[in-house]
């Protein structure tokens, strides 16, 4: 069994890009692939960073958490949402289990770890930290050490949709340089048995530059000077992989993984507009311009269904006895939900082409005590080639602005993993589930896996 495990979490690092398209340009990853077990990991449903990193760390599907995304409905309220934070997650994530069993843990930059807490080691919270003035480290003294090592810490690159692209690229790399500097310092100078460090720039780079890379994307411009921006970022990360791997001991296990992948996104389906057009949703006042769903005036007494969430549609039935002004009777729920599912499957794309849309009923994909608080339906439009938009006021079915600025990539439901030095047969293995990695890590560290974990250990 391993004495130490280092997990390099690369948010949104895409398997098709890293294992295929860019492989020849990524010498460190390619070298590791030769003597590691690697492949595709199926993300959580939905493949949002928030739900995915929680699912990974719990070894469970999202039905075990009240969190639906970065924001979640408060007790079925229409417009009152809570923000994902560590205080509302039961202490059953990977590091909680390991710390309880005496393992020294370092948890760095994993989404939904603010406020940070005691993990028998160090916790540095992620981009959902309110701002850098906050206490984003546990213990608090670590903040000072980080500031000295990295000459100031960056929580996230703000306004990356509006800034000039060359500035965004520079800032994303600058942010990760600082973080890797800190992570490498911790690897060498702190006492740890489990270390997880997650990058954020690997996610942002796809959202900001996919159309520059992808000649088939409708927003692609032939004269773009950022055609290789994503490749250059993958190369940058590959260098970091080499640097981190060189600091690990011969017996240390290295897991490189993403929470989900990325793919081209051609625009958004305005789901609430669809419901209005189909007569399922009524407005007291139709907004004069595209407006966030929770800032519009919905006529709830005449609305049967609505959508929250961007990118991946989260559909809620306006259910009597559950929603404050619910009108769909409980006895009609199943039939109505099936009707909505069928309606959503009829949506064709902007060119009138049939979409490869997937609709999930919550109980079909989730277990756990929070299943009932999760959306009634979750939709992947055209296998996530189209995002969902909750905003109202477009007067049409499709849009290209969810809120601020364009975005040419969506998350994809397949992420990557590479497990090195874990005693597994080298080479590509059949697809695993993201939730399998948590029990794998626990077993590799010779600790006990909680019985309620849904994932299956690979070892």
């Amino acid at each position, binding site marked *: 069994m391993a004495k130490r495990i280092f997990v390099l979490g690369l948010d949104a690092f895409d398997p098709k890009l890293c294992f295929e398209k860019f492989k020849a340009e990524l010498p460190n990853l390619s070298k590791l692939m030769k003597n590691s077990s690697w492949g595709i990991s199926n993300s959580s449903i939905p493949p949002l960073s928030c739900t995915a990193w929680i699912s990974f760390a719990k070894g469970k599907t999202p039905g075990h958490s009240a969190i639906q*995304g970065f924001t979640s409905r408060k007790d079925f309220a229409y417009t009152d949402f809570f*923000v994902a*934070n560590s205080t*509302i997650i039961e202490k059953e994530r990977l590091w909680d289990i390991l710390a309880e069993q005496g393992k020294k843990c370092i948890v760095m930059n994993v989404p939904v770890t603010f*406020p940070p*807490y005691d993990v028998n080691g160090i916790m540095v919270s992620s981009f959902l930290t*309110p701002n850098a003035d906050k206490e984003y480290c546990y213990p608090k003294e670590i903040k000072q050490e980080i500031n000295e090592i990295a000459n100031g810490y960056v929580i996230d690159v703000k306004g990356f949709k509006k800034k000039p692209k060359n500035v965004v690229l520079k800032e994303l790399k600058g942010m990760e340089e600082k973080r890797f500097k800190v992570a490498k310092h911790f690897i060498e100078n702190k006492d740890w048995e489990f270390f997880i460090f997650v990058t954020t720039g690997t996610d942002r780079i796809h959202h900001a530059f996919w159309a520059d890379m992808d000649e088939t994307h409708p927003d692609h411009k032939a004269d773009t000077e950022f055609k290789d921006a994503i490749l250059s970022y993958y190369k940058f990360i590959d260098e970091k992989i080499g640097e981190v791997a060189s600091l690990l001991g011969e017996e240390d296990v290295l897991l490189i993984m993403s929470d989900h992948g990325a793919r081209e996104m051609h625009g958004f389906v305005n789901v609430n507009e669809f419901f209005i057009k189909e007569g399922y949703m009524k407005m007291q006042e139709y907004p004069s311009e595209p407006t966030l769903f929770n800032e519009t005036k919905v006529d709830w007494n005449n609305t049967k269904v609505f959508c929250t969430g961007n990118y991946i549609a989260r559909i809620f039935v306006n259910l009597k006895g559950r929603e404050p002004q619910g009108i769909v009777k409980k006895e009609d729920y199943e039939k109505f939900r099936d009707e909505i599912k069928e309606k959503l499957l009829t949506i064709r794309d902007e060119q009138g082409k049939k979409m490869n849309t997937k609709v999930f009923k919550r109980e079909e994909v989730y277990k756990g005590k929070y299943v009932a608080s999760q959306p009634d339906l979750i939709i992947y439009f055209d296998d996530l080639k189209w995002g969902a938009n909750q905003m109202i006021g477009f007067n049409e079915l499709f849009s290209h602005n969810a*809120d601020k600025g364009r975005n040419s990539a969506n998350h994809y439901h397949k992420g990557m993993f590479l497990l090195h030095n874990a005693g597994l047969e080298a080479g590509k293995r059949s697809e695993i589930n993201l939730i399998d990695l948590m029990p794998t890590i626990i077993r590799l560290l010779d600790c006990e896996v909680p019985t309620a974990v849904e994932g299956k250990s690979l070892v």
Partner: protein
Amino acid sequence: MKSFLSKLLGKKKEKKKEEKQDFTEEDEQDVLETLRDLQYVD
């Protein structure tokens, strides 16, 4: 002695609890602003 120790341990535990940070309404507003900036307004 036992009760003294348990009282002491109890107090220590309470002290540790005090160190735990809350997620305040102000924090929530700050994060919401970040999410909107990121377009992750879901």
